[in-house]
């Protein structure tokens, strides 16, 4: 795709086809393109995600053959899939657990991108398209979680759609929520349209993944040194070297997936979702799926409704402009001693926000004493969320731009080849 092609049609039929529909050429050039020779296992999550996406599409299409998007029947139809459909006991958790595994892989993929500077010039569009994929994944995952129509399904849907009621009613907030619901609250019409959109969005994700890979083929992969490819000695062909490496990583990942699928299929979900949806009774403790918990913690960290919603969306929005916030010319944090430390704090902050999102805001992280009534006092989870939210935004808006100006990076190797062979004394 970038410049010359690696495909030479040999047989007459290949030549005939190539002159009319160069589809084999497209496939060959997608698979045989020069990649840096030093990609480590953090680079296998792209391929893992591609496999998970296909798995989700296949299991999803199968589940749709048995699922009924009606408020009186949706819950029972999911039970019917699990109990009566041949292999339904496996296919339904494969889809539900698969969603969790896909988010696990995408978070590792994104952290890897931030650490090694994969969002930087000339890969900004790969990063931005990737963020669009992530947003589509969040919307798809959210609507999919609504479909079993249990207590967490309906109350998750109520809370998330009510985020739009933060828009003042006079500025069409009520009109927007009623339009989303197709009624005065989350009900049958909402369930039915969520089913329709849950089926649609994965195909948009497939289209965006095609753009993501297309954009990747212009500059090729980034690599752990962050240094651009200079000569052919810096590269290996994607096939067979990385197809095999990716295949090995996929096998390991699928083993972890299988453990959850066959032994802990419900561990990623919430027990309340085994209670049929009841719009007149809110569960005592609503939590979203684990992969949304950090954002839920950010939402709850802000005491004002509209500002909370804005802050939560901003926490995702800021990722879109990351390529212009992380202004250091050195891509890989391997050579950025300070950025590396702030990055690991950032990962901890995200995990801490996830922890806080799973707890009640008033629960204590640790107690420092007791008040006059004998109740324990100390750092509450809402305060921990506030501290970590400040760090989350400071990392992007203050620390990364300042480090770009102030940090003195370590010397980089002369080339990828030199880094691999250890022939360059410049590498630390």
């Amino acid at each position, binding site marked *: 795709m970038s410049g010359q092609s690696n495909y030479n049609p040999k047989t007459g039929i290949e030549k005939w086809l190539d002159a009319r529909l160069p589809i084999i050429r497209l496939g060959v050039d997608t698979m045989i393109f020069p990649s840096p020779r030093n990609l480590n296992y953090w680079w296998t999550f792209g391929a893992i995600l591609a496999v998970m996406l296909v798995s989700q599409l296949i299991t999803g299409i199968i589940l749709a053959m048995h699922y009924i998007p009606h408020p009186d029947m949706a819950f029972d139809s999911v039970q019917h899939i699990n109990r009566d459909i041949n292999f339904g006991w496996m296919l339904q958790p494969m889809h539900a657990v698969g969603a969790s595994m896909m988010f696990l892989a995408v978070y590792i993929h994104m952290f890897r991108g931030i650490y090694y500077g994969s969002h930087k010039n000339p890969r900004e569009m790969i990063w931005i398209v990737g963020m669009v994929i992530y947003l589509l994944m969040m919307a798809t995952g959210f609507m999919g979680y609504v479909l079993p129509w249990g207590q967490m399904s309906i109350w998750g849907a109520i809370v998330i759609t009510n985020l739009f009621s933060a828009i003042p009613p006079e500025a069409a907030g009520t009109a927007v929520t009623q339009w989303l619901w197709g*009624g005065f609250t989350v009900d049958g*019409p909402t369930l039915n349209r969520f089913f329709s959109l849950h089926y649609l969005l994965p195909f948009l994700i497939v289209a965006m993944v095609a753009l993501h890979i297309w954009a990747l083929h212009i500059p090729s992969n980034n690599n752990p040194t962050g240094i651009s490819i200079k000569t052919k000695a810096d590269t290996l062909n994607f096939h067979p070297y990385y197809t095999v490496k990716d295949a090995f990583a996929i096998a390991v990942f699928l083993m972890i997936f299988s453990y959850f699928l066959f032994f802990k299929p419900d561990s990623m979900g919430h027990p309340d979702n085994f209670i049929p949806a009841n719009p007149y009774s809110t569960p005592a403790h609503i939590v979203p799926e684990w992969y949304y918990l950090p954002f839920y913690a950010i939402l709850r960290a802000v005491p004002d409704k*509209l500002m909370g919603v804005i802050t939560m969306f901003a926490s995702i929005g800021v990722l879109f402009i990351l390529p212009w916030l992380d202004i250091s010319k050195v891509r890989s944090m391997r050579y950025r001693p300070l950025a590396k430390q702030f990055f690991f704090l950032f990962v901890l902050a995200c995990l801490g926000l996830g922890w806080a999102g799973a707890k009640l805001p008033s629960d204590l992280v640790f107690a420092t004493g007791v008040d006059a009534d004998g109740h324990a006092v100390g750092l509450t989870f809402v305060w921990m969320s506030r501290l970590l939210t400040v760090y989350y935004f400071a990392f992007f808006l203050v620390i990364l731009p300042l480090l770009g100006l102030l940090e003195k990076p370590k010397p980089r190797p002369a080339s990828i080849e030199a880094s691999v062979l250890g022939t360059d004394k410049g590498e630390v």
Partner: protein
Amino acid sequence: MSTPVESDEPTRRDFIHIATGAALVAGVGFYAWPLVDQMNPSADTLSLATVEFDISSLEEGAQVVAKWRGKPVFIRYRTATEIAEAEALDISVLKDKQTDSERLVPGPDGKLKPQFLVAVGICTHLGCVPLFDPKDSKGGEYGGWFCPCHGSHYDNSGRIRKGPAPTNLVIPPYWYMTDTVIQIGKEALV
């Protein structure tokens, strides 16, 4: 036919371009609106807009939940102490300033019925159903309702006192058809 002369004057071709473009924009608009509007509440959803509820069986201090438009509506028979508490409050401390009597509607005799508070049982923060249990203080710190989702506390008039909710519990449109029957979804005809 003569050769066209170079000129800045609008030509018939310019006119056709603009007219076609305008027709296209209008056409897309006419086409798009039904696609958007089909998601709005349908006729059968809208037709379930009112319910009648007999409040004669309520006991003092208790609450019943009526279902209206798929939402819970709290109907609470407040005790004399609770009413006094709600009326005595200085509303300057409130986020959403409303007196207790502003949150009531008159009965058939034209007088307010402060013992009955009718409010949509949906937290104005993110839509959860607040809890009510006067016996074991689950109703929050102000003797009204407590929302378990994000910790909003309401008083017995449904006014927001503490927590992230921006406004008081919504008072639905309703009126007293008789002394003991209310209709929710419609205001009294004056």
